[in-house]
């Protein structure tokens, strides 16, 4: 029995993912909001809280709700939250349970620009960027994660082939997801990852997430409303956020402490709130912007010890049929990375708990865990524990 105002995810929606040259970011956001509300069986008039994802806020920070309040027919919004998806949803769930608001929609949409180096054109004069910004050194996201991977390999003796195992299992899952971008290209091998062209050593092309357009939305409400929604609710059993570092100007030491960093802090809080253990998790959605990220996620989430993430993957635990099926949609590596894709993992876990996943369905999935992370590698973390009942 859910608590009287316990929060649940009752609607999810993903737009088409891929190159969407004929769309705008805004149109994807609107489509996603409408789609997720329709999935829930709710109306726009029910919404009184929003979590606009990065780039979907239109006005910065705490003024974003003013844009959206007016855009959504001068709706008096009672909550505007920020944070990577699982973190924003965790805080929205707490607000819902406390009675601050009733129906919250998290949304995102991006079209027409790329995150990676292809999206940056040379200019006629040297552009100016803030003080110690990484662009001065020709670094970008892949570079930061490459630095992290190199140090990880140095400290724990992991090899590039170990990292490649992540791309291999994630692609296999994508082949079972008809909506994934890379699934139609078929399975890959460790050797294919190692032979794909280098991007930022030690990371090759197939170690990197996709860089596509797309949108999504997620609707959260409380038990009384959830009871009348169209789909089976995915209950929020626990959720938390933790933030520890800056905007990719350095990564504070230590990098791999035994006690973990922001991810571990958020995970411990979320698991404690949920009253479940790591062994209780039937399906996981872990932020996988690069192969190294998944390995670090597994360690920081406490599914294995620090330094043992590569072995955990090699032993097959992350595969469908393993003890922790992970990123069953093909993840950011092979399903979709649409710019701020952290909500995609939430949506896949919700679909697993609903039993909607067809060939990639985890049998009898009851409890799922989601990790959203980013900024200075694990600088920001959000963790959500979801249950089918």
């Amino acid at each position: 029995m859910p608590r009287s105002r316990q929060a649940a995810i009752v609607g999810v929606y993903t737009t088409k993912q891929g190159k969407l040259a004929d769309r705008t970011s805004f149109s994807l956001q609107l489509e996603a909001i409408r789609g997720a509300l329709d999935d829930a069986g709710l109306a726009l008039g029910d919404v009184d809280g929003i979590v606009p994802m990065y780039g979907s806020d239109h006005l910065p920070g705490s003024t974003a709700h003013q844009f959206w309040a007016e855009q959504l027919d001068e709706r008096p919004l009672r909550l505007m939250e920020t944070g990577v998806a699982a973190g924003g949803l965790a805080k929205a769930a707490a607000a819902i349970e406390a009675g601050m608001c009733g129906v919250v929609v998290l949304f995102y949409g991006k079209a027409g620009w790329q995150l990676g180096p292809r999206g940056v054109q040379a200019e006629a004069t040297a552009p100016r960027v803030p003080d110690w910004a990484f662009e001065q050194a020709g670094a970008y996201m892949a570079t930061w994660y490459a630095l992290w991977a190199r140090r990880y390999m140095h400290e724990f003796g992991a090899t590039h082939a170990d990292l490649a195992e992540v791309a291999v299992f994630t692609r296999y899952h994508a082949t079972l997801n008809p909506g994934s971008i890379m699934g139609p290209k078929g399975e890959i091998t460790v050797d294919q990852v190692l032979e794909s062209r280098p991007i930022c050593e030690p990371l090759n092309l197939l170690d990197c997430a996709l860089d596509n357009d797309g949108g999504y939305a997620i609707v959260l409400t409380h038990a009384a409303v959830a009871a009348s929604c169209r789909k089976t609710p995915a209950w929020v059993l626990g959720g938390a956020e933790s933030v520890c570092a800056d905007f990719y100007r350095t990564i504070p030491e230590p990098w791999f402490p035994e006690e973990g960093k922001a991810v571990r802090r958020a995970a411990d809080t979320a698991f404690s709130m949920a009253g479940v253990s790591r062994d209780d998790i039937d399906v996981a959605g872990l932020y996988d912007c690069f192969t190294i990220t998944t390995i670090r996620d597994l360690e920081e989430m406490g599914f294995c010890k620090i330094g043992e993430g590569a072995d955990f993957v090699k032993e097959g635990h992350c595969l469908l049929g393993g003890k922790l099926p992970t990123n069953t949609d093909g993840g950011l590596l092979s399903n979709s990375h649409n710019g701020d894709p952290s909500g995609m993992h939430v949506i896949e876990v919700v679909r697993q708990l609903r039993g909607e996943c067809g060939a990639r369905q985890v049998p009898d999935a009851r409890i799922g865990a989601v990790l959203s992370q980013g900024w200075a590698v694990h600088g920001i973390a959000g963790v959500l524990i979801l249950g089918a009942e």
Partner: protein
Amino acid sequence: MIYLKPLPQIEPGNKEFWDGLAKREFRVARCDNCGHYNWIRLPACRSCLSERQTWTAVSGRATVWSYSIVHRGPGAFRDEVPYAVVLAKLEEEPRSCLVLGNTVGIPVDELRVGLPLKITYLDVPGENVTLFRFTKAD
């Protein structure tokens, strides 16, 4: 040869750092209260929250904490691949300063974690800016 890669916005809060480079000094904000170095500079010392910090010239000696060889360069970096990006750990203690930068004069296949480095300087032609690079220690 026009320099087309991104350059820093030099402002009152960071001018002393960039002025230091022109004088061949790599300056790090050092706390007047507890003596800890802070990279990058924040408004207050991370260790004791004192707002009294002084841009202090450091030795320029460092080691490779981590590195990446970049094969796909953004914007004006496109034609320079492969190039190295390092996170260099300055020798100053106790709070570690991991500084992101490019290298000069180090063949990319010689890079390894722990390689001793020193800071060197590059006056940007046609711009009133001096940049820093990491090169092999003597």
